[in-house]
């Protein structure tokens, strides 16, 4: 089958089961597309031997019948996931050469379901960034373009987003601490869902901010997101914050019927200086859900404006603690030492050489807000405001709102290098619509809804009740069908 790499998971699954396609052929199509797509910088460690071995095993399983949905489906894996025997370096020089002796729970579950790993995907270093420019491998280029500039695919899951949008793989894993699945999904015209905190095990995923991190699928359609999330989710005793809840059949939740459901439109998300195109898209999405029979209600989430500063206290605080393990002793890089250097010099030189500028900045901010004398003023205050942000959502849901519709990003994809002279805080504004969801631990999904005047994709975000990913995906499915977004980037790579 020509162009099998362009299939959705659902279409490939059906073709594989019918015998119209083999997993080996499908995998070969993706491997060919990956080699032709080096200009995108999405795949940073290719694993064709593993892929073909897994594909052959998948074909045998398909032939035997009763193969799971992901059997034979080729995926890209974000470099943040530990994969046994395969480089897993979180796009950081400090983990150069690190090959885990173990497999993350998420990838183990995906491979257990028969999925095929094509390789590891580029990202921002330790998932800290919104443009993929903090990666030790260099930036990913967005397959979408509107002039001769190279655009960012967003971050931190920029390699995952670009690889899916450019049909290098059928889908990819992402992780989302403040918007790292949803913002790149919106910038590349694909679907990305961050599940409820605790739905997907964090075990074996390199930690950034443990109370915010969640993994999720990045896919071409909402149906694919439902299929893949079902395989990623589930209780894991190795992650103490993993929820001991049954995983429903998310695909079965896609009924396309949202009549009578209440959609909240939060007034605080109407930011000053919001581009007219984003406002128009939001209004159009609202109309689509209304036309599908939902009731639209205005809601208030009064602490929204404090979400970014809260996030930029809590996330660096947790990062400074999590990243203390990179000390040049147990794995990764160790600096060359001068005569007479002791262990403190070893730590300091190793971390200065191994961490990039943004990671160093966040580790130091985190160190500062946790240090004696400032802990109450910054960290404890931020945790209190976080409780208020969560309460805002709880009150909206208690008042009968089923889902909340917002823009996914404050703009379309911007040019690589364009933010080079911006302050760190300006870059952080990319997360303005997405961080609230991480702070409150809720599920959120980005759905492509339209193109801007330059022809770049724009997405909307739906936020759901905790543990109600099935319901959230159904709302997203209705929005996807109404928007009818079918545009693809024109191939230049």
């Amino acid at each position, binding site marked *: 089958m020509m162009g099998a790499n362009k299939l959705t998971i659902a279409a490939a699954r059906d073709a594989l089961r019918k015998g119209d396609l083999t997993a080996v052929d499908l995998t070969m199509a993706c491997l060919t597309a990956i080699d032709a797509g080096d200009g995108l910088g999405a795949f940073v460690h290719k694993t064709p031997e593993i892929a073909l071995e897994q594909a052959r095993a998948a074909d045998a399983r398909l032939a035997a019948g009763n193969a799971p949905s992901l059997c034979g489906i080729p995926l890209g894996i974000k470099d943040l996931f530990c994969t046994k025997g395969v480089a897993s370096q979180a796009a950081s020089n400090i983990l150069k*050469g690190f090959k885990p002796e173990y497999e993350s729970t998420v990838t183990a579950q995906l491979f257990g379901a028969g999925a095929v790993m094509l390789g590891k995907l580029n990202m921002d270093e330790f998932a800290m960034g919104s443009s993929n420019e903090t990666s030790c491998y260099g930036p990913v280029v967005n397959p979408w373009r509107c002039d001769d500039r190279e655009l960012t695919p967003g971050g931190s899951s920029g390699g995952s987003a670009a690889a899916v949008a450019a049909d290098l793989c059928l889908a990819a894993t992402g992780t989302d601490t403040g918007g790292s699945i949803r913002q790149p999904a919106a910038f590349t015209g694909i679907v990305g869902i961050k599940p409820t905190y*605790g739905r997907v095990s964090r075990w074996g995923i390199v930690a950034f901010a443990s109370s915010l991190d969640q993994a999720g699928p990045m896919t071409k359609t909402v149906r694919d997101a439902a299929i893949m999330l079902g395989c990623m989710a589930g209780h894991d005793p190795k992650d103490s914050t993993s929820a001991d809840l049954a995983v429903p059949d998310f695909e079965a939740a896609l009924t396309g019927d949202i009549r009578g459901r209440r959609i909240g439109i939060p007034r605080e998300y109407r930011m000053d200086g919001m581009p007219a195109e984003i406002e128009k898209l939001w209004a159009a999405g609202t109309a689509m859900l209304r036309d599908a029979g939902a009731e639209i209600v205005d809601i208030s989430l009064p602490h929204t404006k*404090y979400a970014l500063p809260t996030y*930029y206290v809590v996330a660096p605080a947790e990062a400074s603690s999590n990243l203390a393990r990179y000390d040049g002793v147990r794995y990764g890089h160790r600096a060359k030492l001068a005569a007479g250097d002791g262990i403190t010099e070893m730590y*300091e*030189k190793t971390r200065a050489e191994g961490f990039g500028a943004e990671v160093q900045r966040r*580790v130091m901010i985190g160190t*500062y807000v946790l240090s004696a004398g400032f802990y109450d003023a910054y960290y404890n205050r931020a945790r*209190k405001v976080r409780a208020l942000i969560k309460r805002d959502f709880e009150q909206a849901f208690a008042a009968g709102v089923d889902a909340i519709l917002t823009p996914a990003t404050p703009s379309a994809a911007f040019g690589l290098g364009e933010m080079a002279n911006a302050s760190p805080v300006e870059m952080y504004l990319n997360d303005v619509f997405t961080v609230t969801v991480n702070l409150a*631990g809720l599920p959120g999904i980005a759905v492509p809804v339209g193109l801007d005047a330059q022809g770049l994709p724009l997405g909307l975000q739906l936020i759901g009740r905790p543990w109600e990913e099935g319901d959230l995906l159904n709302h997203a499915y209705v929005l996807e069908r109404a928007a009818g977004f079918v545009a693809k980037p024109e191939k230049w790579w």
Partner: protein
Amino acid sequence: MAIDIDTARRVAHLARIRVEEDDLAALAGELSGILNFMEQLGEVDVTGIEPMTSVTPMRLVRRADVVTDGNIQAQILANAPDAREGFFAVPKVVE
């Protein structure tokens, strides 16, 4: 809250990240900019609000206090930059 050069030096040391003396002024400026952004949190009335400790209300899971893993010395040392005789090796820490 502005961070001066001495504070920047202290934070870098606490974080065990070597920063050259010439780079401290720029670092202090960047950190001040970020902290300035966080100052907005001072506007929020947090009277009577407990700091959030758990994202979803759940009890920390406990398990029986028994050995469930081990005897994997080679795997644990496999990625070490310097492993000798079954140990991680580091510069001398005691005279």
